[in-house]
């Protein structure tokens, strides 16, 4: 399958994607697309990006063989792609650095971003601080409460954090508010969207910035095992860490891929963010993709223990691979994710982000069914320090 040509020039991944935005933003999206196309071919831009990814972010991240987890589950050999070891603690910085470099090319000195779990907000605030740019982060007030630590981190980094008290007060509402800010200040401001969502060129550009995860992992696994993995597993909120890991393997027909959505308290309960089992196509925040919506097209409220997966839409490229059957999508419940969170801490000494714990929960289900000769790579997209306080609170421990 040829995936390198996707999206088409209209920003389409098959029927999905596109640019469903107010006219005010169209010129900015067209400018961004053009500037990104130039930057991609510009050796100087690529050299700068490579420099910051290596010296500031700490890439390449390691591909760690999780021996104790492998033994405990008693099946396939498990590797973890350690995006949690990136500067700021998650893969989000790969995209934030790339987009800040683009903003500098476009001479936009003000950066805005939305954040759910706070990881993208922290990454953006970090990149903005490093380049001396003004930065404002929009965050739902519900998320500010469950991710208080990251709110404080963003403020330490000099960003203004603005609470959004509309709708479900989570990621979706933060994106709407950031889009409104961008619409108002588009001449001076670049909007660093954090996942493979929104209007073209964002889903393509963010995928490209995150594709380094899979490029590294493919080389690393070939060096370590002399063969490709049987499975790739990653959690899917908007879908940037998963498409980042999967993209370099899409042409490898033997490699199966599983995206894990937030099952909340169970898909049957209605309190979840499993777009592929509970949703249907529609248009939200600039793109056509699978959405959780009612029969009138109103967007449903979502639920997940993990703020980063708590979103009603999924990246449009995922919707295409879902329809084609190239990637399998499943979900893990809050309880399964919390149990995987504990398991990884105890067996491997790694506290994963609650988002990434959804991927581990799937590994727990999958590994025992596979042969010992088979290999799974799971993307450990972020570290769990930000979640410690929330998990403690859920267990009745006051810190």
């Amino acid at each position, binding site marked *: 399958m040829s995936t390198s040509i996707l999206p088409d020039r209209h920003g389409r991944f098959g029927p999905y994607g596109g*640019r469903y935005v*107010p006219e*005010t933003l169209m*010129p900015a999206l067209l400018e961004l697309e053009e500037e990104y196309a130039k930057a991609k071919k510009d050796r100087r831009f690529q050299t700068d990006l490579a420099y910051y990814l290596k010296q500031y972010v700490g890439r390449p991240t390691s591909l760690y063989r999780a021996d104790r987890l492998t033994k405990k589950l008693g099946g396939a050999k498990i590797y973890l792609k350690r995006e949690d070891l990136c500067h700021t603690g998650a893969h989000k910085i790969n995209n934030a650095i790339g987009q800040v470099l683009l903003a500098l090319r476009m001479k936009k000195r003000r950066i805005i971003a939305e954040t759910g779990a706070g990881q993208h907000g922290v990454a953006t605030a970090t990149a903005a601080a490093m380049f001396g740019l003004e930065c404002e982060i929009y965050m739902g007030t519900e998320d500010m409460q469950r991710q208080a630590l990251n709110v404080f981190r963003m403020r330490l980094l000099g960003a203004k954090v603005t609470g959004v008290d509309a709708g479900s007060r989570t990621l979706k509402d933060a994106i709407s508010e950031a889009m409104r800010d961008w619409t108002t200040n588009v001449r001076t401001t670049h909007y660093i969207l954090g996942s493979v969502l929104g209007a073209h060129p964002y889903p393509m550009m963010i995928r490209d910035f995150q594709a380094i995860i899979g490029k590294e992992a493919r080389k690393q696994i070939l060096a370590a095992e002399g063969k490709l993995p049987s499975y790739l597993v990653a959690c899917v909120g908007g879908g940037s860490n998963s498409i980042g890991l999967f993209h370099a393997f899409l042409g490898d027909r033997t490699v199966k891929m599983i995206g894990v959505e937030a099952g909340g308290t169970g898909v049957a309960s209605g309190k979840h963010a499993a777009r592929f089992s509970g949703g249907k196509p*529609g248009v939200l*925040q*600039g793109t056509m993709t699978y959405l959780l919506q009612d029969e009138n*097209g*109103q967007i449903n409220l979502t639920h997940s223990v993990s703020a980063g997966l708590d979103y009603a839409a999924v990246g449009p490229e995922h919707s295409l691979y879902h329809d084609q059957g190239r990637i399998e999508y499943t979900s893990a419940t809050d309880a399964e994710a919390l149990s995987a969170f504990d398991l990884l801490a105890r067996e491997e000494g790694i506290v994963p982000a609650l988002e990434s714990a959804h991927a581990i929960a799937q590994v727990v289900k999958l590994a025992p069914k596979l042969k010992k000769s088979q290999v799974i790579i799971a993307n450990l997209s972020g570290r769990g320090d930000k979640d410690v306080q929330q998990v403690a609170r859920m267990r009745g421990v006051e810190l």
Partner: protein
Amino acid sequence: MSGRLEATFQRLRDKKEKALIAYLMAGDPGLAETEQLVVALEQAGADIIELGVPFSDPIADGPVIQQAAERALKSGTSLRKILNSVKSLRQRTEIPIVLMLYYNSIYAMGYEAFCSAAKSAGVDGLIVPDMPPDEAGPLKGPADAAGLPLIFLLAPTSTPSRRKLVAEESHGFVYYVSLTGITGAKLSNVTDIQQNVQKLKKVSASPVAVGFGVATPEDAAQVSKMADGVIVGSAIVKRIASHQQDPAMVGHVAEFVRSLKAAMAPA
């Protein structure tokens, strides 16, 4: 193809008047009130009604209209019920009614089902704020077939090539967004508006109406000198919101609309 819209602009041109386009969020506070408001605002001088369809995630709208949408959804408003209201209004009034609705509301009903239902209810045009002409392809066929004009928006940030595209694709009228921002922001840079509207009128066969930020009779007076129509939204919705519990709500809002229209009278 737009009987009522075209006729209205023609009638006003003959009288050297400008169109006052009044925005209402359908179902805020309830559809019964919306129907009363449409009739009362027509009597108060509104020439065209822009009826907002509430959406859970209105990215082009500021807080005033967002909150109105939340109230309307809470009162159980849906697109189908709004179309029923338009149908029942058509027994009482011939004022042009254009719907302003987000793409997903149409998509969920289906392009053809929606267009034929809207047309037969008596809708005169569609404004879809998150659908630039570039994405209008799938809706255009069914809308043309039903005889429903698509009204596109042009912004201060639009380049000459986009101005041309919007002018060519827009029917009924062209909606010029007066500012880079969302609904309910403050009117600014009147000189810019004037220049951009003039450029737009050169390439547009349809009338040009200006909206976003028109909040007072003074604003309406100023803008009516530059364009064929003036759109007032948040300022009306704000008055509905502040008189929610007041039995005289419709009268208060009509009074405000009367003052807008009076300010737009040709000198």
